[in-house]
């Protein structure tokens, strides 16, 4: 089977657009990606649309009702925070399988403000704050505390992740925020769920991102100049763990996906020049340094202390600003990560460019759980 290429990809600047519809927000990114690829929606053979909060509302078809109703197959995907990456992966699968030569993946979300998770519902009385917490800041705080328990990781080390990613976003005009947040500010901002303060929680924003994928044959026909090769696409779910019922495990499904992705790509963690990973909370980023093999188990605290994952470091992580500062529109996040890494591999990332990047990795987690990893490679 021949390789699959990203011919065009883009995202809108993340923000809050309550006056616009979800399909309108998605259509903007779709058109940007089509323009970037130099093709028209009329050329696209199939489309995958990722959106979570309107999963039953035929968002993909409504995007085509905005930009061109050509009768192509449209699939609507929902996979929690892995929604966008799942749409991209299934688009990739269709080309990899030889069914199509040119397809479109779009991810979009319109978010409210406020806390995610903790619903539970069911019969009887509300359980939040009675049987612990199901709120996302607490769930990921507990996941971080597991790392603290094993390796002594400190509140300050978790907070440094947020300092780094907010700094990165000052170099990204498409991020929600471009604001420096010094360590004292991060640690002293409102405590949401120890050890995650408000500045250590991802930003709820509206946004969209899209990518045009092509077969090798089609890519050669249209021009490989700025194409990015998809070296690996992996999706996993959460294998059984003894604490599953009360403590979602984001580690095992990531490790499973990382191993499969490196095997498929034929590269190892040392070959990866930049990573966009799922920093839904600052605590999560620390876990994924080890889960993705960027360092040995127990060394993630040292990695953040020594700046190895900052722009200019050994393996920059979340140079886009990450979910913490670029923002986290759930269904768009997985494709926005792919846009970010592709932009570096094309050498077009401006002030935040990771110099000489050849390989990049994207990672998302959808709690529940789904993990998607893509390894991308510079072509030219």
């Amino acid at each position, binding site marked *: 089977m021949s390789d699959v290429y990203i011919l065009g990809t883009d995202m809108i600047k993340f923000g809050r657009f309550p006056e616009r519809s979800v399909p309108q927000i998605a259509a903007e990114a779709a058109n940007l990606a089509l323009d970037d690829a130099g093709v028209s929606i009329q050329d696209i053979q199939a489309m995958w649309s990722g959106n979570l909060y309107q999963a039953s509302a035929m968002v993909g078809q409504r995007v085509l009702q905005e930009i061109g109703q050509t009768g192509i197959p449209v699939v609507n995907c929902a996979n929690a925070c892995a929604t966008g990456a799942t749409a991209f992966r299934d688009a990739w699968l269709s080309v990899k399988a030889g069914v199509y030569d040119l397809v479109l993946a779009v991810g979009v979300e319109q978010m409210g403000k406020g*806390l995610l998770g*903790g619903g539970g519902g069911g*019969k*009887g*009385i*509300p*359980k*939040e*704050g*009675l*049987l*612990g*917490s199901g*709120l996302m*800041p*607490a769930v990921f*705080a*507990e*996941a971080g*505390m*597991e790392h*603290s*328990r094993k390796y002594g990781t400190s*509140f300050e080390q978790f907070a440094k992740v947020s300092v780094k990613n907010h700094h990165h976003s000052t170099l990204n005009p498409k991020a929600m925020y471009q604001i420096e947040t010094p360590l004292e500010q991060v640690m002293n901002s*409102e*405590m*949401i*769920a*120890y*050890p*995650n303060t*408000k500045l250590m929680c991802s930003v709820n924003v509206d946004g969209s991102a899209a990518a045009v994928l092509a077969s090798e044959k089609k890519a050669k026909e249209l021009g490989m100049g700025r194409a990015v090769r998809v070296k690996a696409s992996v999706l996993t779910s959460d294998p*059984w763990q*003894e*604490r*599953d*019922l*009360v*403590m979602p495990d984001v580690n095992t499904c990531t490790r499973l996906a990382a191993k499969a992705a490196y095997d498929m790509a034929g590269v190892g963690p040392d070959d990866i020049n930049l990573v966009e990973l799922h920093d839904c909370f600052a605590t999560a980023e620390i876990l994924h340094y080890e889960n993705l093999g960027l360092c040995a188990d127990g060394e993630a605290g040292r990695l953040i202390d020594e700046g190895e994952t900052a722009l200019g470091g050994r393996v920059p992580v979340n140079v886009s600003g990450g979910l913490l500062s670029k923002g986290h529109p759930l269904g768009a996040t997985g494709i926005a990560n792919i846009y970010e890494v592709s932009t570096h591999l094309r050498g077009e990332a401006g002030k935040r460019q990771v110099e000489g990047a050849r390989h990049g990795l994207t990672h998302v987690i959808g709690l529940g759980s789904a993990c998607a990893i893509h390894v991308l490679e510079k072509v030219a």
Partner: protein
Amino acid sequence: MSDETPQRPLPAVDYLKLPAEGDPYLEGQKCKACSAIYLGERSQCSKCSARDPFEPVRLSNRGTLYVYSIVHRSFPGIETPYISAIVDLEGGGTVKGNLIGVDPDPEKIRMGMPVEVVYKDALGRKDKEGNAYISYFFQPADAA
């Protein structure tokens, strides 16, 4: 309101058992094939996929604090702060609940510390019919 005798409090979750005689306890469902323990009824094991009947087991009221978070921001109307705790029970089973009897301060909470399961009114929460509920909480074992 009717003149009927008020009902006994109800359990907050179905794996909390309130026998007519004897003390409340948490009940696990143990897979007969692989011994994996679940909370609540089930018909198949998600660890080994066995479809054999499950065996109800009485879970211990003693355990150790695995991890926690101190929740300061929650939904409107929910009193904060509270400590969300993951506790590994002696003999198997992991349960999430509120840790009480200790200050909500990371300096005061030690992961790995022994805790016990205690049963109390569910923070005054009642359902639409006005029923009261019993829930379970964790407290440091040495504070008993």
